[in-house]
């Protein structure tokens, strides 16, 4: 198991296939769950005809998008038009290489020695995630510009301006978590939460709020979905896309939602740790595999995404930018200062 071939090719290849397969399946069924959850929130039934109780709906949707005709608008820039969905899905998938799903696992005893259940753990984990997910903005701008349509252009510009404006408070919220954690590596952040007996959402409740709101704005979801709202800009930057390219935009949006959910779970809620991880009294809960805790935390965040979508009206664009630049930025800066002050007081001034 320690030969270089195994270590560098076989094991990562198996993990990559597992991550991609599970991710694509989860993203496809996330579209189905979104429709069902939104429907029940709105006192109606979602899709329940295709397959038993509607469970084959995402398969039908995927098949439809695969065989649908692919129209390229006349006078559109063909190469950039083809490149834009690739530019948006590659970062959305690449981010998953560093997100930790559980700690060391033996896959229910199938393996002789435990292997880590993430692809790799680099020492700049969260920086890699933030940097790579910012590349997705390229895809949006290029997609909006390359389709020869004024709605797409304005939608793409607005969407890109919105994503870029909300990256700044998101960065500051992550900085306040790093103050408490002391490392950029995602696995180490979870370990610190276990050692400190405290999940980071308790002192960082404001950081959690800011991070989640910025996450909702980053993925262009309601209440920040002006660039893709149908009555406003007719689906914005992906108006002129059809067929598989549109499916790639869609996949990228849901994959980004899952990334934000996973990061909320890892940064603020202790990743794969069970509640009260060091309390002996609850040790009987250890029989539940840690992946279940991670998945349920991500699931709660995704439910809150859909809950927001079913409840709120959307922000007008200038209100949206005002919230990002005039409210969240000073609030997150103040949060960084307060948390730094709190750590200083706790560590240095209270001890002696």
């Amino acid at each position: 198991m320690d030969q270089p071939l195994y270590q560098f090719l076989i094991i990562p290849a198996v993990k990559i296939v597992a991550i991609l397969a599970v991710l694509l399946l989860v993203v496809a069924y996330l579209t189905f769950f979104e429709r069902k959850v939104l429907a029940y929130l709105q006192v109606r039934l979602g899709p329940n005809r295709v397959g038993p109780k509607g469970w084959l709906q995402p398969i039908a949707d995927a098949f439809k998008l695969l065989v649908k005709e692919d129209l390229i608008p006349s006078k559109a820039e063909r190469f950039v038009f083809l490149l834009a969905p690739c530019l948006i899905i590659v970062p959305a998938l690449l981010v998953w290489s560093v997100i930790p799903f559980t700690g060391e696992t033996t896959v229910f005893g199938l393996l002789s020695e435990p292997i880590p259940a993430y692809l790799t753990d680099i020492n700049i984990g969260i920086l890699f995630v933030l940097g790579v997910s910012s590349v997705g903005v390229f895809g949006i701008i290029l997609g909006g510009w390359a389709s020869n349509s004024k709605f797409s252009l304005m939608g793409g510009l607005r969407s890109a301006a919105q994503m870029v404006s909300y990256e700044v408070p998101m960065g500051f919220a992550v900085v306040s978590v790093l103050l408490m954690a002391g490392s950029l590596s995602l696995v180490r952040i979870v370990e610190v939460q276990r050692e400190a007996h405290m999940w980071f959402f308790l002192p960082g409740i404001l950081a959690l709020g800011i991070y989640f709101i910025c996450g909702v704005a980053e993925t262009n979801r309601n209440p920040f979905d002006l660039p893709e709202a149908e009555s406003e800009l007719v689906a914005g930057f992906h108006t002129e896309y059809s067929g598989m390219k549109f499916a790639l935009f869609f996949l990228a949006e849901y994959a980004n939602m899952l990334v934000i959910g996973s990061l909320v779970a890892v940064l603020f809620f202790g990743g794969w740790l069970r509640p009260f991880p060091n309390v002996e009294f609850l040790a009987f809960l250890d029989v539940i595999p840690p992946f279940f805790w991670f998945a349920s935390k991500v699931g709660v965040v995704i439910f809150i995404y859909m809950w927001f979508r079913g409840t709120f009206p959307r922000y007008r664009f200038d209100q949206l930018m005002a919230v990002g630049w005039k409210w969240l930025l000073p609030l997150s800066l103040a949060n960084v200062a307060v948390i730094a002050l709190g750590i200083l007081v706790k560590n240095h001034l209270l001890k002696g």
Partner: protein
Amino acid sequence: MKNVATVNVDRGPIPWTERIYLGPIVRGLGVTLRHFLRNVFGKRDVATIEWPEVKRQYSERLRGRHILTTKDDGSLRCVACYMCETACPANCITIVAEEDPEAPVEWEKRPLLYEIDLLRCVFCGFCVDACPKEAIIMSRQHEMAFSERSEAVVGIEELRQKGPIEDEDLGYRPYF
């Protein structure tokens, strides 16, 4: 219009506790959560009607597909007076009249050809209102799907009343 009494409805500036809007946000979230939990875990109370297992009950005044009524001996009541064709705002009725040799003078005319183009029809019921013999009424059948346009032009054989009048799903008609 200068000395009209006015009421000042200005409530002053909105306090900041109202402007951040957190209260209504939480209440709105509570409403949708309550709907979600009730529909998923409690008594399912959705507004959806699961067609075709469950169909809506329509009123007896619904203007659906037309029926040409018959007398007791099976012949049409229609006397080809052209009232319905004249009254129709969509010009969808086509009638060609012929003479019935051995009928009494009240029924001396009958339709040789009576066609309604159901794709042109706007289902307004003017033909039912115009008919002096109660010869055309409307049923409650509204589910009509055609594979070709030619299937939508229906003649006497498809429009004629089949069986006793009580068996049809009657809709818009005079004196019901």
